[in-house]
């Protein structure tokens, strides 16, 4: 390895961070300006800070509800998807199932479809097929959690599979010889080694669910409406309330950041493969 030059590395990351953060900083700038000031000559620095947008957003019960829905839907979906993908990848990686590579490829095709036309069949499924008496899947958090599997589950399976495949088979064979059940192998051998992959999958599926817009806009109305959709209600054809939208957008970064920083800790080299005995 080349000698480590931390100063150069830190300088590089600092410069890159400025580029990365600039649009987010600008989002913040928009959120603390009164509407009229947005359309004057821009300046990089803020002279005055106008908090009214935040006061308005934080005091809004509806938006708080949307926020709660978003947190429930994203977390529910990310956990469900990561668990199912973990099971599926283990099966695809370790069992000799007929046609498994075709199944693997088929899963990803569910992410390829352009969304616009598929809104209609989803809408019909949600309002006319999944109906029990007065209850409909439409506008429920459960519905959204299940629906988001269509794009998140293929994603999770595809990002997790290389990780699981890379775990040497000798490890689970050794454990099986020692009398471990499939469940014990998954829990004691695969899970700890797949932790970085699982963490990244969890983060990214959470983010995809959090940011999803088209499906939530079509398939929810109030009870399960998400904050991303709520925020878009301020983007209208007659004129956008940029300030309010930006303030909501900034606030929605907070839960996402918390999830990120908690889960990111697991993206480190876990137990290494030194455990394999030759």
């Amino acid at each position, binding site marked *: *390895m080349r000698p*480590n030059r*931390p100063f150069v*590395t*830190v300088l*590089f*990351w600092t410069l*890159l*961070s400025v580029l*990365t*953060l600039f*649009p987010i900083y*600008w989002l913040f700038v*928009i959120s603390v300006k009164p509407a009229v000031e947005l359309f*004057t000559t821009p*300046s*990089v620095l803020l002279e005055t800070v106008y908090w009214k947008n935040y006061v308005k957003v934080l005091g809004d019960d509806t938006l708080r509800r949307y926020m709660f829905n978003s947190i429930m839907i994203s977390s529910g979906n990310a956990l469900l998807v990561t668990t*199912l993908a973990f*099971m*599926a990848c283990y*099966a*695809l990686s370790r*069992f*000799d*199932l007929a046609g498994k590579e075709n199944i693997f490829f*088929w*899963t990803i095709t*569910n*992410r390829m*479809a*352009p*969304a*616009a*036309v*598929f809104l209609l*069949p989803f809408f019909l*499924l949600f309002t006319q097929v999944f109906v029990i008496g007065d209850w409909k899947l439409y506008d429920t958090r459960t519905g959204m959690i299940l629906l988001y*599997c*269509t794009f998140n*589950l293929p994603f999770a399976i595809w*990002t997790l*599979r*290389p*990780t699981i495949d890379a775990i040497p088979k000798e490890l689970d064979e050794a454990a099986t010889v020692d009398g471990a059940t499939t469940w014990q192998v998954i829990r004691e051998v695969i899970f700890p080694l797949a932790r970085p992959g699982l963490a990244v999958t969890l983060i990214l599926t959470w983010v995809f669910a959090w*940011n999803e*817009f088209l499906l939530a806009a079509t398939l929810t109305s109030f009870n399960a409406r998400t904050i*991303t959709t709520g925020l*878009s209600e301020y*983007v209208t054809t007659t004129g*956008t309330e*940029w300030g309010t939208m*930006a303030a909501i*957008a900034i606030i929605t*970064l907070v839960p*996402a950041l918390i999830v*990120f920083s908690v889960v*990111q800790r697991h*993206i480190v080299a876990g137990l*290494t493969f*030194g455990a394999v005995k030759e």
Partner: protein
Amino acid sequence: MRSNRVGWLLLAPTIAILAIFGIVPFLYVLYVAFHQWNPFGANPYMVYNGADNFRRLVFDAEFLTSIGVTMKFAFFAVVSEVALGYLLAQLFMREFPGRGFFRTIHTLPLIVAPIVVGSVWRLMTTPSIGIIPYLLKNWTGYDLNIGRDATTAFALTVIMDIWHWTPLVTLTLLAALVSLPKEPFEQAQIDGANRWQIFWHVTLPMIRPAILATVFIRLMDALRTVDEVWMLTGGGPGAATRYVGLHIWKLVFPKTDYGYGSAISIIVLYLTLVMCWLLYVALVARRDQKRPA
């Protein structure tokens, strides 16, 4: 080998969910694609018209143009993101002060919703009120106007996409890199391999599956981009950034031409599938050949 029944059981929930929410809607769209249907038009009923929709799209210049620009967009965006994302992931493998902090900053763009990303970039780049044209004009005298210049508008959508999605590549490749066994690297160093040789003969073969998966995901997501570009350029100027996703959106929503929209979606889905399948076969086959016995 243990009983395959356990394997199928582990796969069953995934197959069930994707069958209900994937295959059923697909069949519906496929059915509609063979009909003339505009629910808000003069005749709101579905009329079977055979392959007319498909015949129409082959000669639809707007659609063909949009396929072309979408491919160009996906190519530039995905290649840059994967190259950049891999480099950054490698940099995160080193020890340096504030690594966790910089990693969090680097992943921030991901947590901004696409619709917000598009809005911010639009406000930043709109001539006369945006900060970027203003600074460029003052510093270099260059006049950035995405409403007028097709190439700039296209380049800007690519840059926005790179800004937004490179962190995804970094994260997935970082997860793959930290999971790699250490022994092959140590062995290669003992054998006196240089950095390039280590990359080419040790790292790359081991993380090829992860790179492949990431390229796929980014490729298909880039091919169906809607929200961000819609907010940034609205598909303009002219049809310069009217990517297929936007094209379908415009057919289905303002025009409510469901029959034709469905046919186009089926074709786009088919093209994406074929492209990914060819890539998959080419790269996976090669990996299997190279795998040491």
